[in-house]
């Protein structure tokens, strides 16, 4: 449930918008030093009853705007005739916004009208051929003081993708293009601004009506040629590529010969040994194809009995077992016994 008093008064909303930089703010433009308009928004901004007052500091009294600009009965700007404008004098504006019985005042910053001038676009653009493949572009300006203007020229040929833009303070209304291609088709635009000697503004005029130079026939053919290239690049080439790809895929799938060449089989070693076990019963020499005489040569042609060798256990009493010896060996405790000449293997029978 809405609590009374929680809704902000419309004027406070307006003030809030103003503090956030979203509220009405006066912007003035002095068009070609002939007339000036100061605007503060459209009907999309907060609908209120606006009135504008202006004065020149230390010079004139405060005066209300005589010619309002309206949008659906809402004042959105003020129109000043030339007689109402004075340059090089500090100019101030006060905007009153009335809403719901309350009034909000918006003071503009101090302005000087020479810094708000927006000249008209240059006219009568003319291109001349000069020597050495040079082009000279000239124009005239509706602004009365041409020496206070600086100009910007933008141009491109039919082969260029982007505009070339240059700014210069021309001595007179002349621009030279050093070298041109007679096979190309050029388009030129010019705009103007008050230069720094006569004011301090960033307001450029609108771009002029263009002037063209070059081979006229190429201009007509250019559109057709561009259309043709468009069809080739965007339609024909992709379709052809897709068709070629499909043909290749079909060929690969259907023709195994081609597939085998492109994707050779990796040999499986187990198949090679399959015959060893299934046909030759594991006989490696037979499977390997070793000749019979070689196989026989490895077989031994003698027989040999197995000789069993065992060690006799040592006896408790000591008996000399050697022959031809009159001196019994002296035995000291702990000392190893002298090696016997009698080998316990003497009694063994070694088959020869």
């Amino acid at each position, binding site marked *: 449930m809405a609590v009374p008093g929680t809704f902000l008064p419309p004027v406070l909303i307006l003030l809030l918008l103003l503090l956030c930089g979203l509220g009405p703010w006066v912007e003035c433009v002095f068009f070609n030093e002939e007339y000036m308009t100061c605007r503060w928004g459209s009907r999309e901004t907060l609908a209120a009853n606006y009135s504008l007052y202006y004065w020149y500091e230390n010079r004139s009294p405060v005066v209300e705007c005589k010619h309002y600009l309206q949008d659906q009965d809402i004042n959105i700007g003020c129109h000043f005739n030339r007689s109402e404008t004075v340059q*090089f004098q500090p100019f101030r504006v006060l905007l009153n916004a009335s809403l719901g019985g309350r009034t909000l005042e918006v003071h503009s910053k101090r302005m000087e009208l020479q810094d708000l001038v927006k000249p008209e676009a240059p006219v009568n653009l003319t291109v001349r051929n000069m020597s050495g493949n040079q082009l000279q572009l000239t124009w005239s300006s509706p602004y009365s003081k041409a020496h206070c203007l600086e100009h910007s020229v933008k141009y491109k040929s039919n082969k260029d993708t982007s505009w070339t833009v240059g700014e210069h303070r021309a001595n007179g209304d002349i621009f030279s293009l050093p070298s041109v291609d007679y096979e190309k088709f050029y388009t030129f635009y010019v705009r103007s601004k008050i230069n720094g000697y006569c004011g301090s503004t960033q307001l450029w005029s609108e771009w002029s009506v263009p002037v063209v130079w070059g081979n006229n026939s190429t201009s007509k053919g250019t559109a057709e040629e561009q259309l043709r290239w468009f069809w080739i690049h965007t339609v024909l080439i992709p379709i052809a590529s897709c068709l070629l790809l499909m043909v290749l895929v079909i060929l690969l799938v259907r023709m195994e010969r081609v597939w085998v060449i492109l994707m050779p089989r990796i040999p499986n070693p187990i198949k090679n040994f399959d015959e060893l076990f299934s046909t030759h019963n594991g006989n490696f020499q037979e499977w390997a194809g070793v000749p019979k005489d070689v196989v026989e040569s490895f077989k031994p042609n003698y027989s040999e009995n197995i000789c069993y060798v065992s060690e006799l256990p040592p006896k408790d009493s000591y008996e000399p077992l050697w022959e031809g010896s009159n001196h019994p060996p002296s035995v000291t405790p702990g000392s190893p016994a002298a090696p016997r000449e009698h080998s316990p293997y003497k009694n063994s029978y070694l088959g020869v």
Partner: protein
Amino acid sequence: MSHAFFRSIFRVLPLLLALSPVNSSGCAMGNRTAEIRVKYENILSHDIDELVNMSAEYRDRCCKNKKHENSKVFFCNDTQEVGSLQTMACSMLRFFQKQKIGRELRRKAALVSCGTLQVLQCRCERLRKEKVCMQVNTYHREDTETGEQSKKKCNQEFCELKENISSLRSCWNKFEKIISR
């Protein structure tokens, strides 16, 4: 015969007054508009732009809604542009000794003042501009630290100087527009 003598004397004096240079009592502009225009466009206008940019780097919050005592300085009177420029330039020279303003800004402002007076060949009535202009040329640059500190301090003298700079530039714009017809 005596009445003829007095008539001739009384005619000449008003004639002399009528024929005296309209622009200023301290300037010898003569017929040098082309020369003045060349010097302004090629040299002085760039110094003025630099001075304006330099002053914009300083804090100016304390300058809002300030009324100035000497309002004469800030008018560029119609048909009196040279005299107005002379007044503004001589007034701006006063700030060269104001210690509360950053040194580089003071020096640049004095440079522009001296340039204006030199181009228009004007003198200052109360100030020895030659002495000040000599000092300007021999002034040393301040170190960066003190310069940055002075930019953060807003004071009324800086506000007056800023006002003076804006008026001088505006008056030069007006003069240029007139002499370049």
